[in-house]
């Protein structure tokens, strides 16, 4: 067990835990927009930066991203010191300059009193804040169909060679994890389109309803998870009904056995 002080109150944490998790557990709210429990932290948004020191650091302070900082005994943490607030305000100011039209950014920035940027607005600023959640989730799903491309101010998220990504299965994990709604997809009838690639959603072989899973996704899951491909041919509802019927038959059979 590790003992630390957060905003003047003592807190306990498990060895190896990240500071942000402990801060959240204390009920303290700090922004962390590139963080998601499903993936490894990356530390790109820098908004969860906190001030840390220790009794024997002779007053020296350090600024660390709490999502990546492993807790340590005797750590003294300030989540909202003047310097930390200045950092977050400036970061929101920079975010607003780059993504002036993003409602997500506007709302978060307003919480820190930043309603307009003091820097030069980027004229064609889009809504992608490059948090990298989409690429990390895609990696985590085992597809790595998209990645960051290029570097510096012109870095972007894209499939290889900016063509329809061969490894994409149309699972939509990227779009659903995107905090600003920048990743767009469209669905019409059985077809789904994302990253310039077309997919066909599976139609339930029992009831004829459309499922959320694409054929490519089913093929991949069946192969990697060792699940029979037919498993995906029916929708969740029908599968539940099938299971219930099987269970009912089973229960009926057991009862008959017992009475006999």
């Amino acid at each position, binding site marked *: 067990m590790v003992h630390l002080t957060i905003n003047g109150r003592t807190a306990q944490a498990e060895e190896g835990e990240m500071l942000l998790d402990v801060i959240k557990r204390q009920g303290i709210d700090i922004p962390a927009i590139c963080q998601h429990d499903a993936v490894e932290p990356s530390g*790109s948004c820098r908004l969860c930066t906190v001030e840390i020191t220790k009794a024997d650091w002779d007053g020296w302070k350090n600024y660390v991203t709490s999502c990546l900082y492993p807790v340590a005994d005797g750590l003294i943490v300030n989540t909202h010191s003047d310097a930390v607030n200045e950092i977050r305000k400036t970061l929101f100011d920079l975010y607003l300059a780059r993504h002036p039209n993003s409602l997500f950014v506007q709302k978060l920035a307003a919480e820190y009193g930043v309603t307009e940027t003091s820097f030069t607005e980027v004229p064609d600023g889009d809504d992608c804040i490059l948090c990298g959640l989409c690429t990390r989730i895609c990696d985590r799903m085992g597809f790595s169909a998209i990645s960051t491309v290029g570097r*510096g101010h012109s870095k972007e998220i894209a499939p290889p060679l900016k063509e329809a990504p061969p490894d994409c299965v149309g699972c939509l994990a990227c779009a659903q994890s995107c905090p600003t709604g920048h990743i767009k997809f469209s669905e019409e009838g059985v077809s789904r389109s994302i990253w310039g690639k077309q997919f066909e959603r599976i139609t339930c072989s029992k009831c004829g309803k459309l499922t959320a899973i694409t054929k490519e996704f089913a093929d991949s899951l069946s192969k990697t998870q060792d699940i029979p491909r037919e498993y995906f041919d029916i929708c969740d509802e029908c599968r539940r009904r099938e299971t219930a019927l099987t269970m009912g038959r089973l229960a009926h059979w057991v009862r008959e056995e017992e009475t006999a």
Partner: protein
Amino acid sequence: MRIDKPAQLTKLRKELVASEKNHTKKIMVCCGPGCLANGSAEIVEEFRKVIKKKRIKGFKVEALKETGCHGFCALGPLVVIEPSGTFYTKVKPKDVEEIIDKSIRKDETIERLLYDDPSNGKKIESYHDIPFYARQKRIALRNLGHIDQYKIDEYIAVDGYSALSKVLTKMKPDQVISEVSRSGLRGRGGAGFPAGRKWATCAKADDTPHYVICNGDEGDPGAFMDRSIMEGDPHSVIEGMIIAAYAVGAHEGYIYVREEYPLAVDNLKLAIQQATEYGFLGENIFGSDFSFTLNVSRGGGAFVCGESSALMKSVAGKVGEPRAKYVRSVLKGLYDKPTVLNNVETYANVPVIIDKGHKWFSSIGTSKSTGTKAFSLVGKVSNTGLIEVPMGTTLREIIYDIGGGILNDRPFKAVQTGGPSGGCLPESKLDLPVDFDTLTEAYSMMGSGGMIIMDDETCVVDVAKYFLAFLVDESCGKCVPCREGLFQLHKMVKNITDGNGKEEDLEKMERLSDVIIKSSLCGLGKSGPNPFISTVRYFRDEYLTHIKDKKCPAKVCRELIRFDIIDDKCDGCMACLSACAFDAITGKKNEVHVIDQEKCTKCGACKTVCTRDAIKVS
């Protein structure tokens, strides 16, 4: 041939030294980056042809050596005749026959090719007597210019691989670490972390396997120290790495070389192949149970991949983005395993430390920064080139005694050390001793050893803009303060050079810089605002002149200057008129010309061609 015992190596060395002694004279042609660019490959070809044609008695073609960088790049291509040390400068292929006839067949020197001493105009024959060389001390660059860069035998003849044989047959890993620790060797890549301490931490780490990596991703504009070592003396790096691997218990290593150094890649690969044939790499090195393989890993040309964690990701085949190093890479590095990463120059020092002992090494330099440091001296300095001096040498000694002062005797303005993330130091700091801690205290840094000298015709605001543009371009773009913050900082500096700056901008820029430094993820971002911070610290007045008076004192910033033709001086020769690519100059032959300010792009082409000094910049 495989060498399994130290005695075999000693025997081979004796044979090699003896056969070298057969050459009464040797021709060393510098094939370093600067001389190659000036055509030294053609000179080598010409020498081969002439030697073949003339069939000189007692002179074999083996006595013609293609060496690494000799150092004095400003005077290249260089040809040195050994053992006299006769130093021929700016040699052309047409000079080759004369060199053979006079300096090889006879003992004459060719006056016209010798070095002119600028202090008295006299010719100096041997390079040993030239102040540029006389004031240096070479450890990491010890073999550059003195051995053929393509031959392992030449390296062995100058005691190469003797340190490795000593380490593997007479020393335990902890003895090696202790020797390096006590020598005081600090990382030459810039941060100056004690190499011995890094090795000790890695050696003690429980997780396995351990790796050693060499950082050859020298990306600072104007720096070519590591390049010269990798190209000209690759075996010194390889030997250093094998010793490090033995010390920390690693069996696999990588040399990460940037894409822009194809020659370094070729020479390293050749050297690895040669070392493997002799058994210095591979299984059971020197008959011990220690095995080690070494691979060359090529970068893709990103500056950020010189940062340790980004470099390791790149070696592993991933996008070269840094990670937060709250857990150090020496414990969780390549493939999340304990990894020792040192720079090229650091490894090149290791064999000498083992050979000569820690006491010898720590007696050089200062108490906290031992040994020497290589610098590439570039910019507005007379003697541009590659140098190595003991730590603690002052900037003034480097720039004036070795560098020969400012080009064309103009006034000194600033020296930029530490690459883009380093800083500019003014004249008042010239007497600072150059070591890791002093430069950091003066708000610059040692960096990997690029040193750019600027004269009064350099505008520091323009310099800050240039380096910020470089960093904006080279930022990996992962974290917001670096990606967006440096972008905005560059925009604001550009505003100032365009004449649109406001006085309050400086304070705002300083506040933004403070946030970037505090909140960036890696070293690139944390030192990113330095081009601005260090120039505004020492040259605030120059910024204010740009902002308040809308003037650029160095007459560099295009938006703040204008070109005019002085009527009295112009003789209407039409040279400027034809040099102007934008048709901004009008006038007839023998009549005074006029510059159309609307069309003028202030490129300065007219000023360059005018022989009568009739173009005025104001």
